[in-house]
């Protein structure tokens, strides 16, 4: 025990360490409060859907894919369709929004057939039988290419989260737009008009996508 220490105790002056401890406490309270506030702000977003993400494919060359036709024999290569505007729609018979958007897709395919737009419907994680039944019930579009994607290779290359998702590829083979969720005729027509005019449309979100069953 040194004399100086004794002296401090007697006079009751705070030793050098005390303010630091006080500051530590204040800092701690501030940090706790900051954590609580940040947590609260982030937590307030729990209602929003974190699966809605912009596609990194926009502006990039479309993935190469060669897909077998759902009906009959033959294959469709996306590269071979270059020079036309291609609309790639991922769908399945188990997907409710796909059922709702089907007539609009068929109508848009018919309306833009003369303008050099080709629609490709990729069956996503579904059996060919169920997919064919779906088309027999709701009707096939004229010149609409329905193809299968065994092993989901094309779906992964397109970065599909759930369906329906619709990608627009321009004449040069660049992905220029994406509709996530149910599409509609006005939405498809608007987007196609932009693509045909050589402008870059945008990616749209129309609602939630339906992930695969048992995911």
């Amino acid at each position: 025990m040194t004399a100086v220490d004794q002296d401090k105790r007697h006079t009751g002056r705070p030793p050098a360490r005390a303010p630091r401890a006080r500051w530590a406490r204040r800092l701690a309270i501030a940090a706790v409060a900051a954590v609580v506030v940040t947590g609260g702000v982030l937590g307030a977003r729990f209602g929003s859907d974190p699966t809605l993400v912009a596609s990194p494919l926009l502006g990039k060359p479309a993935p190469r894919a060669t897909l077998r036709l759902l009906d009959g024999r033959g294959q469709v290569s996306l590269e071979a369709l270059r020079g036309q505007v291609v609309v790639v729609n991922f769908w399945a018979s188990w997907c409710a929004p796909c059922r709702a958007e089907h007539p609009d897709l068929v109508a848009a395919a018919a309306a833009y057939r003369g303008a050099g737009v080709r629609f490709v419907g990729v069956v996503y994680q579904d059996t060919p039988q169920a997919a064919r039944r779906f088309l027999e019930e709701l009707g096939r579009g004229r010149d609409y290419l329905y193809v299968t994607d065994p092993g989901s290779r094309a779906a992964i290359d397109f970065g599909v989260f759930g369906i329906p998702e619709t990608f627009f590829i321009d004449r040069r083979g660049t992905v220029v737009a994406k509709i996530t969720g149910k599409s509609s005729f006005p939405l498809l027509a608007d987007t196609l008009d932009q693509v045909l005019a050589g402008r870059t449309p945008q990616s749209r979100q129309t609602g939630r996508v339906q992930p695969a069953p048992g995911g």
Partner: protein
Amino acid sequence: MPSRLRPSGLAGARRPPTLTGGRPLPVAAARRWLPVVVLVVLVAVVVAGLAQGRPAPRDRAEALAARLRCPDCQSISVAESDSQTAQAIRAEIGQLVADGRSDQQVLDHFVARYGRWVLLDPPPRGATLLLWVLPVAALAAGVGVLVGYRRRARSPAAPRVDTESGAGDQAGADAEAEVEIQAPTGADGWGGPPAPPGRSRRRVLAGILAGVVALAAIAFGVTRALVPRPAGGYVTGIEAAQASQASPGGRDLSKVSDAELEAVVAANPEVLDMRLALAHRYFDRRDYRKALEHYKIVLDREPHPQALAHVGWITYVLLQRADLAAELLERSLERQPGDPEALWFLGIVQLHGLKDARAAAATFTRLRDLPGLSGAERRQVDGLLRTARAAEARR
């Protein structure tokens, strides 16, 4: 530094002397050490659990799958999911690994398709830096709270130290010193007496105020940094469809006066969207001459379908040139086949201008079959179609 340790010894000595003449009873010592032992055991259990619960991945492909988020699941990795997509991704990882790609190349492969979202561990930069900083901040806060708590618990007893500094307490005091040293935050915990209360009140108030201001700043900053996604809106914004909703500058066009818009268009003659908006405005008000002026400039640069359709209609109404009007409307429809407005105009021009009821009926049929018409619109088109068919029958 023995002299530094002294105060702690003294701090321990401020407790009432024990019956054994300063030596703490075994029970008391056990009580003292118990929390430390419990803490160590708990930490050991957690560490052991973590170490056992996560078996080492069998190979690189599995390790990579564990770092990728399953696209169609809820917050689990590709390695943990049995969804078809996860299986397909695992197969693709296996292929890429077999091709000799590096870990980073494999991860980049999937980031290029799904975005950074697909990485389970967000990279410590940008907005996701917060995720890495927050836990550290929380830990620091916890330590700070402990320090403060200890200090407060000790402070009131401190003045007694002076009278108790007998040599007999030295052994017990040394035992306590050991505990102090082992405690992680011991260094800051050895407080002297608290600051005189008179001085601190103002400082406490200032501290609270500063805290509130800091909190408000943090809350404000974080809220501004997070942009809510528009309901049913879009994620990546590029020019096109905004034109129909808002002006290119993001301002609501309906709140801009004609004069303002004229000035802006005059200052930016090449911004066609703005000029079109102005022309549409005149068109909607049937100020066809002014509208025509701007549509002409637009059409000089690009055969915009809506401009073509509107000029076609103006040609019919103003110049009574049905043939030219029909031609312009046909050209508009070539560029935008499903445009209800152009179809409508064309049908009218064919019916009343060209007196070609058959063509008009065909046009109205095309218009009626468009999805997206409202009930009232559809009824109106049906009426027009009936008129056209009646005219056709009369001939």
